[in-house]
């Protein structure tokens, strides 16, 4: 299964359908920084026939644009609405990737999204896992979607 394609299709569909925005995937990255600054990250755990995580990392200004589009209102600061919206975004991408994995015979249950944000925080890249990291750009900024599944 082409995980890059699965993440790309899922993310593009969500932005097109629910945000009326175009999300343009870039070339997949081999690695990412483990320290994020002034950003919002949402992580969904997937447990079943194997363990996996799907995470979205979004700089704060881009998170405000995305939340504003979800809610159809101007959002000026990182608050509970922003954390909720980015968590729901990760939840929908994880659900779509899960559907593709289910077709391949995998069985996962999704966790409730966890959201972290702040001036500086660290999220380790899972060790001993197969992963893809896909950058996206929208009108209003860039963000990363990454998926790791245990080997």
């Amino acid at each position, binding site marked *: 299964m082409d995980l890059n394609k699965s993440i790309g299709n899922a993310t593009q569909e969500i932005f097109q359908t629910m945000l009326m925005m175009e999300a343009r995937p870039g070339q997949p990255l081999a690695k990412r920084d483990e320290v994020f600054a002034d950003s919002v990250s949402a992580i969904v755990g997937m447990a079943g026939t194997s363990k996996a995580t799907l995470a979205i990392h979004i700089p704060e200004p881009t998170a405000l644009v995305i939340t504003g589009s979800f809610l159809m209102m101007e959002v000026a600061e990182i608050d509970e609405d922003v954390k909720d919206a980015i968590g729901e975004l990760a939840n*929908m991408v994880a659900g779509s990737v899960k559907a593709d994995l289910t077709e391949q015979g995998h069985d996962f249950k999704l966790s409730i999204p966890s959201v972290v944000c702040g001036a500086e925080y660290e999220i380790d890249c899972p060790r001993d896992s197969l992963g893809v990291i896909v950058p996206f750009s929208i009108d209003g900024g860039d963000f990363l979607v990454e998926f790791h599944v245990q080997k």
Partner: protein
Amino acid sequence: MGKKVLIIDDSNTMRKIVTRSLRQAGLDFDTILEAGDGQAALDVLAGETVDIILSDINMPTMDGIEFLRQKQANDKIKNIPVVMITTEAGGDILDEAKSLGAAGSIKKPFTPDQIQEILGGLL
């Protein structure tokens, strides 16, 4: 008397999107009630009668499957149709929802047209 809908989702963002989509679909409910999980929904239904329920599955405290189970066991509310609005595209969990009386399901992300198509036949 006007129609009432109950939206159950732990995401405030998603409850707002569903509310907006109902209006965009031309489904003008007089009253839109909200609950953040299955237990909160049961609390709402103890004091309110609604025409239809739209429920997420994956929620803290009480998920959508347990909500369906509790609803089926309550004669006062067991006949209210429930449509699951969920990231789940199929599989065992939607089969379980159906076996517990769910009238249909809508996969997130969704369009107002998809909402209209499913709910229009139930109202």
